[in-house]
């Protein structure tokens, strides 16, 4: 593998302690070896399948609808980590 475990941990935004990395990496390589089993299959003209049902896209008019009541909206806001009134606070991005 060209890129190491820490690279993917960074992409996934998960912090690992230094002493954990070795055992995670070992498991990761083992699982990778296992899923590599698909390598030998000839799948030249096979179309990928992303979903088990042959569904058509659901289209509807773009109408604004109320979801729940004030109580529900308050509950959704409440679960936010930091807020001031109706403002939900996030960390600085830039």
């Amino acid at each position: 593998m060209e890129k190491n475990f820490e690279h993917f941990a960074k992409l996934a935004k998960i912090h690992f302690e230094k002493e954990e990395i070795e055992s995670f990496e070992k498991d990761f390589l083992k699982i990778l070896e296992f899923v590599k089993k698909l390598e030998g299959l000839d799948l030249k003209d096979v179309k990928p399948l992303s979903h088990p049902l042959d569904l058509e896209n659901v289209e509807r008019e773009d109408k604004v609808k109320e979801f729940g009541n004030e109580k529900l909206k308050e509950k959704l806001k409440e679960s936010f980590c930091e807020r001031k009134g109706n403002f939900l606070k996030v960390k600085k991005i830039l």
Partner: protein
Amino acid sequence: MIENLTIENFLEKLKNKEFSAKEFFEKLFEKIEKEDKEIGAFLSLNKEGAIKEAERIDELISKKEKLPPLCGVPCAIKDNILVEGLKCTAGSKILENYVAPFDATVIKKLKEAGAIIVGKTNLDEFAMGSSTEYSAFKITRNPHDPERVPGGSSGGSAAAVTKNFCLFSLGSDTGGSIRQPAGFCKVVGLKPTYGAVSRFGLIAFASSLDQIGPMTKNVRDCEIVFEIIKGKDILDSTSVEIERKFEEKKEIKVGIPKEYLVEGIEPEVKSAFESAVKKFQEKGVKFEEISLPHTEYALPCYYIIACAEASSNLARYDGLRYGNFCEGKDIFDTYSKTRALFGKEVKRRIILGTFVLSAGYYEAFYLKAQKVRRKIKEDFERAFEKVDLIFTPVSPTLPFKIGEKIEDPLKMYLSDVFTVSVNLAGLPAISIPIENLPVGLQIIGPPFSESKIFQVAKLYERD
């Protein structure tokens, strides 16, 4: 009292006032509080809410009002399905204090039908596991042998039915999470056709594989609950109305895939499966050998797809919108410290999912797995041109010892070897207990053939 009841005779006795709902629930909670200490099926109980609801049901009965179809029926809900006002942890530290702000569609339907929620059941964190040992809070023990696992990830829901803590429970099944614990705990469990039941309000693991389904004491109860929870829901665009009707055929032809009864299967499982097949033969069911040639690729294909979808679905746990939050020096540090709260198995799967979706590896892993997924679906389509249903064991082993596989993820993954194909192909499948052993018989049908599956599964019970 509850030990000998099914949904139908519970309803009859309640309506005939052989007991009141309130009295029934008070006794039920006494039993749970006493007996669940050993088993650990529940993460939280809804005692106050349930008893209040029972009082309301008693009032309906005394006023001789029209009663809803599951009037007062006690049920337990896997803790990854939202019930308004109750904690919903998904078995994870990251959602330890999360209280559901609304009901999942299945819960709305159950409540409208009059069912009463007893509590929320234990599961592997985010439904990722096959033994319920990956729950961040506690392990659940198999009621038939407390040294062994109840299966997973819906282990708490399965154990709650076995222990008669409820008359039915709901689980979720992404790769076998209803069927395998149903088998291990000797109860009935249905994974419906993908789309048959709304996923709105189910905490997502792998959206193209997840389905909610019932776990019950017998096939008839399973059918009753399925009829209530199924149906199209505007809040889940992948849900559909079941329109397909099956004519009742005199002769039912069942296929047994030759790829399933090979090495790795425990002799007890094999012989229980063979005796069950014999019983069906005596009832006039015809069997023939079939082939599902891509079976050996199903497990690696499943782990690539399920983990890819999980890595995307679980990106929402950023500590900001809900769940626990760990302060970091900047936004990325906050994300990664918060997400370090995930358990070991969840981290493993997120990393694998991130890897198979990343530039340079996408084609070799994710795209390839999607192609294999089509081959697996086509295998089943070809088989169902010849046979009505397919029988296999649910898992290759009997329940294993607690701790036996927890350190070896690959060994744990192999528990799902007979169940994952069904999710990849979006098919319905039931697990029914056979030969009084903790092993299930899996009956797989074509899309939306649940009614036929129930009809055939009932043949085994009529002994």
